[in-house]
């Protein structure tokens, strides 16, 4: 075991898989010599060669579309969209082709590609560098959308994504890239996609979250504990597929649910999760299923971000309202 942050764990996952499987290639903007703007691919080109880990020209649609061609021909591409807000030019390729090639060709051609996207706010970044576009991908049939919240999960989920026979959008909460350090096995392991993790067991309320919001929810749960309230926390790990079983079991037990997402509200993941709660645990509910999400605004530039990004205090405020409902 070695102590790693999320950047190191993701790097280690790719390194492990590049060494094992010669069909894997890693490319995108600045991922080669520089090792990526977040250094997630650092050292991989030196170790595995410039034919396997390389800088592509700067065009996200072609990065995604060429990955489809490579995948059909038997390679396993791992591509990087440098920032969340730069994934949009690739959207046509992801939605119109990558997500549906298996279906269109009745399984003859498949796209076992991984699209890595560093995402979310909280890093004092430029415009278009702090977005949470996961709902677009979760809404797209044919994709899986995986979002880790710890270094250990990041490595295991990324290996599962690489080994998955279908395209996986792997969203990396860049705000916690270096915030959490954890013991991570150096050998290969994988975590099944679609199975949520109960981070904290509790009796009175369930929080469902993912990505960078897990850490904020954990802080709020500490505050709730001081009041004597017992809160359960579920880390979804993937927003598609969604682990209904874990949600059902938890909400039937607690009767209260709070969904926390950094993504904006309307038509977002929280809306989907509340529908699932209603379908699975309606008769157990003791308070309205509640969501705490980003506003339906553009995420503000760094000086205004403090209003948008959800703090542990705001989560605690919602916990208190629900407990006292």
């Amino acid at each position, binding site marked *: 075991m070695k102590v790693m942050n999320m950047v190191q764990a993701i790097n280690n996952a790719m390194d492990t898989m590049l060494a094992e499987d010669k069909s894997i290639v890693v490319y995108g903007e600045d991922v080669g010599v520089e090792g990526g703007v977040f250094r997630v691919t650092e050292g991989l080109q030196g170790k595995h060669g410039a034919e396997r880990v390389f800088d592509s020209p700067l065009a996200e649609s072609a990065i995604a579309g060429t990955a489809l061609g490579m995948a*059909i021909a038997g390679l396993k591409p791992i591509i990087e969209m440098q920032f969340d807000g730069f994934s949009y030019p690739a959207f046509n390729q992801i939605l119109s082709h990558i997500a549906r090639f*298996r279906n269109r060709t009745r399984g*003859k051609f498949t796209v076992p590609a991984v699209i890595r996207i560093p995402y979310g706010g909280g890093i004092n970044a430029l415009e278009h560098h702090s977005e949470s576009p996961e709902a677009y991908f979760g809404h797209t049939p044919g994709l*899986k959308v995986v979002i880790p919240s710890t270094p250990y999960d990041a490595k295991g989920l990324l290996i599962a994504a690489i080994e998955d026979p279908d395209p996986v959008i792997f969203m990396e909460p860049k705000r916690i890239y270096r915030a959490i350090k954890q013991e991570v096995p150096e050998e290969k392991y994988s975590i099944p996609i679609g199975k949520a993790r109960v981070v904290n067991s509790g009796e009175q309320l369930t929080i469902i979250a993912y990505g960078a919001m897990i850490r904020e929810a954990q802080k709020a749960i500490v505050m709730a504990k001081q009041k004597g309230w017992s809160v359960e926390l579920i880390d979804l790990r993937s927003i598609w*597929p969604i682990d209904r079983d874990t949600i059902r079991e938890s909400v039937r037990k607690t009767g209260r649910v709070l969904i926390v997402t950094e993504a904006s509200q309307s038509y977002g993941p929280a809306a989907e999760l509340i529908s699932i709660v209603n379908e699975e645990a309606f008769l157990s509910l003791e308070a309205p299923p509640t969501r705490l999400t980003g506003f339906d605004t553009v995420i503000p530039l760094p000086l205004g971000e403090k209003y948008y990004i959800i703090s542990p205090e705001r989560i605690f405020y919602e916990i208190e309202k629900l407990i006292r409902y």
Partner: protein
Amino acid sequence: MFNQETLDKYSPLDNKVYQLMDDDGIPLSKSWKPSISKEQIMQAYKDLLFERTADFMAISYQRQGRMFTYPPNLGQEAIHIAAGMVMQENDWLVPAFRELGAWLAKGVSLREIFLYFKGNEDGSRFEKANRVLPVAVPIASQLVHAVGLGYAMNYQQEKAAVFAFVGDGGTSEGDFHEALNFAAVWNAPVVFIIQNNQFAISVPLKMQTKSINLAIKGIAYAVPSIVVDGNDLFAMQEVLAFARKHAIEGKGPMLIEARTFRMGAHTTSDDPTKYRTKDEEEEWALKDPLKRIKGYITAKKLMDFSGEEAMVKEFKKKIDLEFEAAEKHPEYPLDDVFAYMYQDMPSELKRQKNAYENYLQNKGGDQ
């Protein structure tokens, strides 16, 4: 014969069209000899006639209400037949949607093509065809797939080329430019073929671009590019054969603007009288690719055409059998809506499918 020297001397900036036969099929140069055999020429004529017959039949099936929207190929067949002659088993075909003869040459069955345009994804299984991608509707989006295939061919050290098609309208799309650029930087073995049929549905070429031709767009990307008479089967065959060799010898991509005219409608839902004149159509009818190859065959006395009517009759029988087979395809089962989205059906899809099945069961009907 088209060779490296011809390419070196050629510049799209001169706006010249590479052409070997005149409108009547008479070679422009006395010293020119076809690089394909007499048998291959006759076969190409038959394949072109077959494509044209199948295309007419497809339109009539559609008119009879037995098939949905279909994009006719009339006037553009020489490009497809030439590509079909050049492509090898291990080459990739990346179509747009108007390349009937090229699909058939790669082993796609007419039954499958009809089935696809009848509205069933089973028609994209291409069971006996090796390395053919399905129809690509979002314009030019398929070109970047071709470049990815090309990268893989280099990576896997396979001597195979990728033949990627796009229309004139597609050259305005970002993916066209991204594909040319990536292909050049990666030295990908891709042969880009623009079927410049003068109209993108109703929009004429002059409203699509200010460029003097479409091949010049390759210059900026350092992709060797050429304008070819797309209705001249020999010119197309020579240039495509050269481009394939160029690709598999590791010299990278080429861009070929095949100049042609869509004699029919964009699709069976389109009415070309709204946007083009009879004069234009008549002018291009003189350059018809079938007429020209027949002109050549007649001039060289390779065969007479007394058997053509009987041959077309045979073709029609065969085409009808393929269409009937498509009509006899099993009913689209509910399973097929869900079964191919993922390798292992996720529980959410199972849940949605079960809910629909329960609805059917409780209602006691079929839908």
